[in-house]
């Protein structure tokens, strides 16, 4: 059983990514179907570089993927199934990493049956 707790870093990243109306709009467009950076750039009153930056922020938090095809950079939302598999296994990994660290701490600090307690808990 794994308890769900988003790390502060992940929450910060998501909030930052979604706190911009252009980025939310890009996300909505991509949910409706594949797009490209140049097509997105045409849709907003800003430079290609600026749109590219917004796409990079969304890509960094794992909400979309970018793929070069010929001269175009295709942008699409990460399929739900992949997103979920990745998320579930990431959470399981984090849970086990935490457990393994706690196990190592116990092995280092808790006396075994044949060594006397000294009451020196760190």
């Amino acid at each position: 059983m794994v308890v769900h707790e988003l790390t502060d870093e992940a929450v910060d990243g998501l909030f930052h990514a979604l706190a911009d109306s252009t980025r939310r709009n890009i996300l909505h467009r991509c949910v409706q179907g594949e797009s490209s950076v140049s097509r997105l750039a045409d849709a907003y009153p800003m430079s290609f570089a600026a749109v590219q930056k917004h796409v990079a922020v969304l890509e960094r938090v794992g909400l979309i993927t970018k793929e070069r095809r010929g001269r175009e950079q295709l942008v699409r939302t990460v399929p739900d199934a992949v997103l979920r598999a990745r998320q579930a296994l990431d959470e399981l990994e984090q849970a086990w990493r935490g457990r393994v660290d706690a196990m190592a701490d116990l092995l280092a600090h808790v006396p075994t049956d044949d060594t006397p307690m000294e009451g020196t808990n760190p």
Partner: protein
Amino acid sequence: MTVTSVEKDFDTLSLHLVADFAAPVERVWQLWEDPRQLERWWGPPTYPATFEAHDLTPGAEVTYFMTSPEGEKYRGWWQITSANPPKSLEFIDGFADADGAKNPDMPLTTTRMELAEHDGGTRMELHSTFDSREQMDQLVAMGMAEGIQQAVGQIDAILAG
């Protein structure tokens, strides 16, 4: 580094983790066998676990609850499917309702744990698999997706207000 390798397979929905400990195999086994030691590492620090029933023989059931910072209790159980002390343990891990009954709608994971001597210490290998994609989807749906939706909803509300 205690964790020496992690592999994730998105097709079989499984996690393979290798960890090395500077302690003998028997000592590492105690961390699983003694419920008082087990509950010091099973739950995350903010959700400590309390084991109520604990018996690591095949067919036996282990029951526990984890307590949230707000004092809410989340119940879980293991069904031991194989045990070979102090070398290996295999169990199914699931959720239970507030009254302790197994919740059949919640996801199950099957975990196989093996301990072996390695470089004067112990190598622990874990292989953990989600039983079905539907169940895994549900687990994620209640965690991450909810978090994202809440975050988006909050931002929209702030911007609208």
